[in-house]
């Protein structure tokens, strides 16, 4: 396990502003923004089959690279295939508990199985897209005379040019994130093969699912008995479509969409499935993680004089981190208990537990 964590830490660049092994030309970047994880697979990072198990097949249609600022391109150039910092992580986990035998079997999960979870997004590229378009929206609010209770809610009518431009740029950033995780997953597989001396087939590391949790999408939902086309914003919320939905991969269609809930680094993560109730009341959505209870600053104060890595090691979890403060900021106490969060969405009926995953080895930014 120590070797695996070391190799993952070495092979997957992490930390604030970390640079990856890819240096993308402008043409490469534009292709990546249009094709997302498909671009990554075309470059040899992963298998075509992976794409079947990524939300939207790993790329949303309608991204427009011409609407991306130079600054975003600059930030994105060297960060593809990197983990970043903050709550992002790579975790080697094991299946501690199965709650839904049938769903677990269909997803290929079984007790004590070792799993790998990747939690990262569009890095500095997406951050820059958000920054750029918040400015555009500030002007749009004035132009269209929108009355806001808080200027941070800056927005534009969906049919306006400003809104369509943001939507196309956001899609590009979403595709950047899907490509990023695809590249990282590929290098993780290579690292596992190297450390364990196993072939791809022997390893059998198939992708269960890849799902976004900060995105806006046009979807059809039934509201008050009427089918409506809506622009659904999920910010720290995960799509959780129920069985039968056409966007669910064929193999999972009778079960429901897998939902991945990354927890804090010391406790657990979960695999859930979407439910009919979620379609009825939460636009097919559920929670996304534990949610902070301490600010980063408070957490650093609380961790003063403690060796968080050693506390984790004593609890049987090996951890490597690029940033000096990250482990303090990210310690379990800084988060709500993921199990109580997941229990609430299950009791509310908007998703159903399939499996609980316990961390064994953690790589943090």
């Amino acid at each position, binding site marked *: 396990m120590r070797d695996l964590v070391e190799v993952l830490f070495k092979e997957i660049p992490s930390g604030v502003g970390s640079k990856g092994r890819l240096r993308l030309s402008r043409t490469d970047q534009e292709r990546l923004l249009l094709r997302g994880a498909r671009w990554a697979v075309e470059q040899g990072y992963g298998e075509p089959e992976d794409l079947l198990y990524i939300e939207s097949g790993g790329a949303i249609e309608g991204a427009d690279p011409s609407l991306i600022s130079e600054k975003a391109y600059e930030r994105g150039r060297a960060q593809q295939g990197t983990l970043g910092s903050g709550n992002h992580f790579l975790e080697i986990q094991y299946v501690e508990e199965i709650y839904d035998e049938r769903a677990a079997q269909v997803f290929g999960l079984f007790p004590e199985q070792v799993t790998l979870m990747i939690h990262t*997004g*569009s890095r500095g590229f*997406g*951050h820059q897209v*958000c*920054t750029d*378009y*918040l400015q555009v*929206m500030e002007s749009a609010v004035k132009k269209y005379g*929108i*009355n806001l*209770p*808080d200027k*941070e*809610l800056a*927005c*534009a*009518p*969906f049919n306006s040019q400003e809104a369509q431009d*943001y939507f196309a740029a*956001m899609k590009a*950033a*979403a595709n*950047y*994130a*899907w490509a990023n995780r695809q590249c990282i997953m590929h290098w993780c597989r290579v690292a596992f093969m190297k450390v364990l001396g196993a072939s791809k087939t022997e390893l059998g590391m198939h992708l269960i699912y890849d799902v976004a*949790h*900060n995105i*806006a999408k*046009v979807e059809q939902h039934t*509201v008050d008995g009427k089918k*409506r*086309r*809506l*622009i*659904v*914003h*999920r*910010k*720290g*919320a995960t799509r959780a479509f129920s069985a039968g939905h056409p966007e669910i991969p064929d193999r999972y269609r009778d079960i429901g969409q897998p939902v991945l809930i990354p927890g804090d680094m010391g406790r657990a993560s979960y695999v859930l499935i979407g439910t009919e109730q979620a379609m009825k*009341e*939460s*636009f097919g*959505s559920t*929670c*996304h993680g*534990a*949610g*902070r*209870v301490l600010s980063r600053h408070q957490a650093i104060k609380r961790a003063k004089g403690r060796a968080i890595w050693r506390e984790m090691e004593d609890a049987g979890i090996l951890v490597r981190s690029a940033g000096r403060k990250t482990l303090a900021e990210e310690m379990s106490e800084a988060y*709500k208990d993921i199990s*109580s*969060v997941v*229990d*609430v*969405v299950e*009791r*509310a009926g*908007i998703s159903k537990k399939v499996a609980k995953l316990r961390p064994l080895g953690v790589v943090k930014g």
Partner: protein
Amino acid sequence: MSGQVTIERLDETRLKVPIGYVQGMAVEGIIYVDSVLQNYLEPDAIKQVANVATLPGITGRSLAMPDVHTGYGFCIGGVAAFDIEQGIISPGGVGYDIN
């Protein structure tokens, strides 16, 4: 906040943010928390759920998941759906860490 209107517990896992919690709400808010997680619920996050309910074209309800906390304009843990014809799109509703 408009004085009198307060959040109401609907059942074991749902709180309602009634219309009128802030001025101009077109729909109500729902926050999925039980009595334990309610202890972590920040007043600013509740206000954000209510604020989102004032935006043009908001449909159904303004929602927050049990991992809710205060974010940029929209709370983190939030779900909001807007009509494609009458509604808006907002970068704050997606956040900085896109996807």
